[in-house]
Structure formats: C-alpha cells, structure tokens
C-alpha cells in the first residue's frame, strides 16, 4: 500500500513542471488552424476548449522556452493578476495536459 502511494506521489511530482522544464506540445497535438478554431487544442480524435490564458500558455509550449520564461511572459501580459496565482495555474494546466499526454517536459 505504501509503495503504491509513493509511486503515485512520484508520478505526480514528475508531472508538474519545474523552473527549467521546457514544455512542448506532444506529437499530434496542435492548436486549430482556422479562425474559428484558435481556442481549440486538437489532439488525436479529440479536442480541448481553452480559455484565453490557456491559449497563450499552450502556444508558448514550443520546447524552447522554459516554464520560468513562460510564467514571466504571462505575468507581464496579465499585470493586474496575482503573479503567484499565474504561476500556480500555469503549472496546474501543464500538469493536467501532461497527464493526458498532450504536453511533454
């Protein structure tokens, strides 16, 4: 029982980005091409609807920018929002997408 819990704790940790992580959209995952699709993240036989910040986050996942750089970028774009919340929610979204095998880092 303890072993099972430890394993899931580990995988949860590995699913959360760290400062130097370079998140990248997984193969076969992309934002929609057409004007009506730009808030959609298309994946094999499925789609996620993203809100405004979600689109920005996902578009920034190019495998070059670090998590820290992405958070800084968002904190500058959304100046009135609480910077800690931005970091937390960005990490939350990336973790969710990682568990769905949509973002790698």
């Amino acid at each position, binding site marked *: 029982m303890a072993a099972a819990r430890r394993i899931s704790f580990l995988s949860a940790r590995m699913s959360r980005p760290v400062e130097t992580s370079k998140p990248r959209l997984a193969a*076969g995952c*992309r934002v*929609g091409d*057409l004007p*009506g*699709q730009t808030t*959609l993240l*298309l994946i094999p036989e499925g*789609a996620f609807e993203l809100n405004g910040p979600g689109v920005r986050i996902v578009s920034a996942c190019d495998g070059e920018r670090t998590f820290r750089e992405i958070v800084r970028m968002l904190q500058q774009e959304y100046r009135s929002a609480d910077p800690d919340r931005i970091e937390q929610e960005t990490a939350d979204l990336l973790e969710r997408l990682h568990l769905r*095998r949509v973002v790698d880092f």
Partner: protein
Amino acid sequence: MNGPLSLIAEITHRCPLHCVYCSNPFVMSGKVDELSTQTWIDVFQQAAAMGVLQVDLTGGEPVARADLVELVSAARESGLYVNLITSGIGLSPEKLEQLAWARLDHVQLSFQDSDAAPGDEIAGATVHARKLEIAQEIRRYRMGFTVNIVVHRHNLERLPQMIAMAAEAGAHKVEIAHVQYYGWAFRNRENLLPTRGQLDSSREVIQAAQARLEGRMRIDYVVPDYYAKFPKACMGGWGRKTMLITPSGEALPCHAAKIIPEMRFENVREQKLGQIWQESDSFRRFRGEAWMPEPCRSCDRRTRDFGGCRCQAFLLTGDSHATDPACSLAPAHKEVEEIVQLVNASHSSARERAQAASAPRASWEYRQNPR
C-alpha cells in the same frame, strides 16, 4: 441543429486483410464506385466550412487508395485535423515520409494480437510482423501514434502482452476496444464474445497498466455493451456529432446504418453536406426524443445515452425504433442475455476451455473484399 464535429471518410472498402470482426457492411462499394479525388477534396472543404474539426481517413484500408497523400494534404489544407486509421499494410517508409510532409496529424495502427500466429489467424492474412516494422517507421515522424487492438475471447488472455507490445512500439496511446457486433463481427459473434471471467480480469489488467504507464502511454478501454447494464451513447447520439461518408458517397449517421431497411440516404455527389445534415430524413429520423418508445421516452438516462444504438436494435429485434437490447430495461434484453449465457456456459471452466482448444478450430467467417 449544431453541425457535426467529426467526419468519418470511408475512402475505400478495398483491404488486404479479412478480419473476422470487421464492422464494414456485407454489401460493399467496388473500386469503380469510389468517389474521385476531387469529390473528396470538395467534401473536406465543405466539412471544414461547416465547423467539422477532425476527419478520420478509413475504409477498408485507406492506404489502398493511390491518392491518399493528396487527400491528406487537401484535408489538412482545408483546416481539418487528419487521422489515418490503418492496418499498416501497404505503407512504406517512402509513403510515410510523404504523409508526414503532407502534415498528417495522427496515425492509428491496428494490431490483432501480441503474437503472430493468432493475430494472423484473425486477420486472415500474414501481417503481424509487417505491422511491427511499420510501427518502427511511424515513430520516426512527429505525428500522433495510437495502437488499436480489438479484443475478444481468443486474445484477451494476452492483454498484458498486447499492452506491452504497444508501449514497446512507441505508441502514445493504446486503444483496447472490445468487439462491437456489426457487420462481420455480428456473424462471428458466438466465437468472439468474451466470458464474464475474462472481462473481470481484463478490467484489473487495464487499471494496473493505466497506473503503471501514466504519463508515458494512455490506455483507452472500450467495454462490450452486451455486458453493460445500460446502452452506449452510440456515436454520441444519432446525427449529433458525426457524419460518415461511404466510398460511393452516401452520407450516413454511422457505419452500420444501411442495414435499416426503411431508410433512404443522400449522396454527396448530389447534395451539399450542410443540407444533408440539417434536412435529410435519414439524419433527422432518430434525432431528439419524439421517436423513442417506452421505457426510453420517460427514462432519466435518455439525455445521456440518446436511446442507445438503432442499428443494434434493428439487428437484434428487426425494429430500428426498439429500445436497444443491450439495455437491461429493454423488452428484448433477452436477445443479449441468451448469447451471453450461452458463451459463459460453454467456455467458462478451464476443462471446457481445454476441450474447446483441442477440438477443431472455430470456423470463422472472414471479411470478403468488394469486387
């Protein structure tokens, strides 16, 4: 009525395999009846304009079409996300390279088993080794890669090995799909249906594998509705999410709909997709709730399962309006119960299985090719 989100493009019924669970209809389109390249391209453009997000290029074996790369390219150009549903047979490194260049988004590669002998028996062709080679080729390209494995009584014991095979092949996702009993699968139903014991062990194997492989490979599991209490929300509801186009251009709400005798289907050669979707009798027939008999009409679940599967209702009762017999509340539920009981009685004990294994092999009805 909101437009469809996905288009299933059955671009050919030709196929080098003869899988005993194929869901293609018995009456298939021959090569001469197939839509031209240009007609398909027009279909893709219409679909994208209607708000369709994704297209599945399937068949038969879509790779059998000489214009596949052109179709992928055109579908992508029109703004669709492109999935290729293939056996892998007919693909070459060169073709894969061309498909990657044409911006194919995702490949779903089928396997029949983890072992060549039983896999090739189900496929009716020597293909397993080639599929493994093709899997290695696919992973060289940056596209989504899913392995699809149809499971049934004869391969469920190798479920752990099949999952391991998919992981080793580099799949991002493996779809473990229980046979759905349409087309050839219906004819081979008694040979394919799993036992209750197999279903229970499979569930455990799946859950353990999902936990072990979390973040590395997704495992999607589709259960057989013959064992469910309630029916599946077939296609996400009749005429709600998906439009299927056959090789000869007929627009269907699902791959099996042509078995329903009183239905007339429109053809994309003659009508626009939008008009077919909104106004055709075939797409409107089982939308909403007005068509539902009791108990569906007053059932709480009707907004979740949309009354189950019309084709299955027709297959099992002769009435396309009937409550889906997979539902435990269906008057005709015994149609499903009886075959489930028959299979469990004949195949459950280890001694009976051993006897069956030494007896002459079950005779399969293999999928035929269209002329």
